[in-house]
Structures are given as C-alpha cells and as structure tokens.
C-alpha cells in the first residue's frame, strides 16, 4: 500500500486513517486472526472508568434494520487493571492505543487523564456521549458549557492529544464541537450512537435491559455523514468520522465530507476483516485516481454549483 494511506491526526502518526471504534474492537487482540495490524491506524479501546464496572444487567443487544442497539453500559475492569494487566499486553501490537474515558462527574475525567498521561498510550478520547449509563455521561455531551468544562479539566491533566467524542442526540452538534474546540480539544470524534429502543410485542417489555440503547451500524450512516460534514466546516481541529462505515466507499464519503480519519465499529462484528478490507479498497480507490495520499480526499466534497 506504499504509504498512500499514511496520515497524522493531532500529532498521532497513523499507518492508515482507519481506527477501531471504542467498544467494538475489544482490546484489539480479539481480531488478530483476521486483521493485518498494518491496516489499523489506531485502536480506541472500550470505555474506561475510574472503578471497575459490571455494565448493565439484562439483555444488552438487539438487532434492528441495518443496525443494532446496545446497552453494554461501560463494562470494564477499571483503569488500574487496564494499566497494570492489559496495556502492557496490547502495547505489543505496536499500534497506537487511544483510551476512551468515561465518568459520572468531572473529577472522574480529570483523574483518568492524569493516570493515563504517562502510561504510553497515544491519546485520550473523552466520551461525553454514552447513552447507556443512567446518570451522567451523555448529560455532559448535550450542553456546550459542561462539554467545554470536561474538556478543559482533561486538558489540564495531560499532554496527550485529547479527542472529544460527540453525541449525535443534539439539535446542533456544531455548537458542542465549537465549545470543546475553544476549551482546548485537539480533535473531535463523531458520532456516538443515537438513542433508540425496541419493544418485545410478546411480553410488552423493552427488549433491552436498560430500556433504551445506542443505535449503530449502516442504518445511521446518512445522519453521521451529515454531522461530520457540518462539524468539519465549523471547527479547525481535525474530525474523526464514524457511524455505519462498512465499505471503502463509505470511508471515502466520510473523508470527502471532511473527516481526517475514520473509525469502524459495528462493521467489525459483521465482518471481522472489515478494517483490512476497507484499507485495501481505499488504497485501490486512490490508485485508480492517481491520488498520492488519502489526506488529499479530506473535505473535498463539491457542494457549490
């Protein structure tokens, strides 16, 4: 692939612009049988919290038309176990590791940023948009002021690149994006899942244990692409685009819309080789058009008549 996919984001060198989206790639090792690490730009690990978390009880997943709902609820071993047991393992993959951090209060985010600062991870993704925890989290992501405060609190504790992950469940995502940019975010990533639900018509109960869950997969792609396009025009910091990306063609759409890098989530479940398949497809797309590097696609959508 001759480096035509090589790029850089907020100071992080990426072999390809294709990241593994948080919560959909485990800690990366689950996919070793299927993915050539050279195709993976960065692995964003499952959402971390200060303390270990069991996640939600009851059913956590439901398939929907061209998509899925999940209410995992941030099940994770806690940041200490991550740093002690997991990180040393996955460092061997020699792929940039970005840690997705989550909290109930601002101090949680600050604490996590602090302990991760010198851990050797490549960056931090601040999740202020998780729809699956009863208190907090998403609340931060839908109000510009709180979103900015969390961002500033994290920036104050780390020199690592800070990516803020935005919620699509808002009236104007560019407003939130501008707020976190002003607060010092080095990049924004979007979209997290849309809040949805399903009902079991036999039992009259919600299908998911948490009643509502996050919608992801191809179904949400048109909404994600629109938000990435709007946000890329609204901020100067780089945008990481995601939401329903399953093919190289999807990837090109997000790059043209203004995403400097993209993340693949649900598609990893459907096709564990998705990231490698997309990398190959993207490389040949560039080759056919004699485009030297993928960054030349970023934001090149032609909207003017």
């Amino acid at each position, binding site marked *: 692939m001759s480096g035509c996919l090589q790029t850089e984001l907020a100071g992080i060198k990426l072999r390809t612009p294709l990241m593994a989206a948080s*919560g*959909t*790639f*485990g800690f990366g090792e*689950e*996919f*070793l*049988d*299927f993915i050539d690490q050279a195709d993976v730009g960065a692995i964003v690990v*499952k959402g971390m919290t200060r303390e270990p978390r*069991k*996640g939600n009880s009851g*059913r*956590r*997943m*439901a*398939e929907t*038309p*061209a*998509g*899925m709902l*999940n209410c*995992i609820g941030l*099940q994770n071993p806690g940041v200490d176990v991550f740093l002690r047991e997991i990180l040393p393992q996955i460092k061997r993959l020699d792929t940039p590791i970005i840690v997705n951090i989550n909290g109930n209060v601002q101090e949680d985010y600050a604490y996590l940023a602090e302990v991760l600062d010198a851990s050797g991870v490549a960056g931090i993704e601040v999740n202020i948009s998780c729809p699956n925890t009863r208190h907090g989290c998403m609340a931060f992501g839908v109000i510009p002021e709180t979103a900015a405060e969390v961002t500033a609190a994290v920036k104050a504790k780390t020199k690592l690149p800070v990516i803020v992950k935005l919620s699509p469940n808002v009236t104007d995502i560019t407003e939130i994006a501008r707020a976190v940019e002003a607060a010092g975010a080095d990049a924004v990533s979007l979209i997290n899942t849309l809040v949805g639900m399903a009902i079991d018509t036999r039992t009259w109960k919600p299908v998911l244990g948490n009643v509502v869950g996050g919608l992801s*997969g*191809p179904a949400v792609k048109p909404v994600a692409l629109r938000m990435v396009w709007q946000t890329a025009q609204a901020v100067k910091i780089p945008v990481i685009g995601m939401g329903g990306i*399953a093919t190289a063609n999807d990837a090109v759409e997000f790059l043209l819309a203004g995403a400097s890098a993209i993340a693949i989530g*649900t598609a*990893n*479940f*459907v*096709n*564990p*080789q998705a990231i490698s398949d997309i990398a190959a497809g993207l490389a040949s797309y560039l080759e056919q058009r004699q485009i030297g590097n993928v960054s030349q696609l970023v934001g090149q959508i032609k909207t003017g008549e």
Partner: protein
Amino acid sequence: MAQKTKFIEQARVLTNEALSKDVYRMVVQSPQVVAACAPGQFVMVRLNGAMDPLLRRPLSIAGADLSSGNLTLIYRVVGRGTQQMEALPVGARLDVLGPLGRGFDITGSRLLLVGGGIGLAPLLFAAERRCPQPVEVLAGGRTKEELFWTDLFQQSCKQVHVTTDDGSLGLCGACTDALPELLAKGEYDGVLTCGPRPMMQRVAALATMAGVRTQVSLEEHMACGLGACLSCTCGAADGGSRQVCKDGPVFWSEEVDWS
C-alpha cells in the same frame, strides 16, 4: 503472529434438508473450521452480503468430519436469519466464522449427555467425537416429531434414553424427570448438558447431588462472537462475569451464577 485459531470461510452448501417440521440440517464445506474445532464450540454465520439482517447468527457445531472437511449445522427456523438459511440452495455459499468459544471437556470414562430440543445439536458432535468410546444420551423433546434425534444419536451412542413432554415417545415428561434414576444406577463420571436454562440448572443440581460434575452450554444474544462487544456477558459464581462467546459457551455448572 501467533498461529491462527479462528477462520472465515465462504463454505459451499452440500445439503440442506428438513429433519422435522421446523428443524433443518445443513452440511457445508468448511475445512479450516472443521480442522480446528472441538465439540461445544460454535460458529457465527452470515447469510447474505446485504445489510439486513445485519448480524451473524450463532450456531453450534453439530458435526465436523476431518476427512471430508464437512461441517454440520442443525438449526430450528425461528426468525429471519434461519428462514433465509432454510432457503439456501445446494451450491450456495454460507459465510462461516469459527470455531468460536470454549467447548466441552469430553474426557472421562462414562459420560451422560442431557439435551433438550435443539440443545442436542452440540451434544451430537460430542457423541461422535467420543466414538468408538460409547456415551449415553438423555434426549428430551416436545413430541415424537423430534424422533429424528434418536436416529442421529443411535450411531454413536451406547444408549439413547428419550422423554417427550406429551409421552408420544419414550418416557412422558421432562428429561429431568428421568434423570435421577439414570444417575442412581449409571455410575457416570461426567454430565454434559445443553438446552433451556431452567432445564440445565435442574440437571446440574441433580448431577451435583449425585456427585457428578456437569458442564452446561449457555446461550446469550451475540453481536461479535469474539469477546469484543460485551453483549453476551453472564454472571459468574465468583461474583465476576464471563463472556459466553469467549469464556463459554460451555462452563462447569459451579462456575455459573444461576440466580
């Protein structure tokens, strides 16, 4: 990189026939999965390139023939995915991901396999792998409609005990009703069970009372089958949790938090 243990194969459909009104057996050419798999493991199948239905479907491996590379799946048609599977013509391709998860420990000199309905599928593979060492199977079904299981097990089993809810075949009642007597005289050193959760819980309780260790095969809704999405978490007796797709689907009954 470590040796590959999981594979994705576009497996050719060799046969796809009805065993009863709503249960089908599909045999596909999947040499890599066959070579790597063990009883109790499963595969995730994808039905077409389209985005609906989106997710793969988990199915137990019901048979794997090393010489031919043939993989057998036995499935009940319950929804859109299995309906599409039923419609797959011979010669079509089934996208198979596997083998996945942790299977049964089939060592031990006298094993009793206890299965309810479609839960008998993974036990069939266990019985075959044990051949020529005989195992006994206790098969519970709804009606004699499910007679076909007896025939399938006959080849590889010393004895096939059958119960049906309506008594139309074998003993009348749940298979757990027949279990105490078997355990009493059977001198088994292991029980393998797969079926509805309440049934497995009861089987495990009875076997434990009789001093026999039990392995159970759990079921959860799964998105990835690889331990990545955390959809399939189940509670463990130690207060922690496990991923059914990766740490299971087979667990020792004492590992499971049955509450």
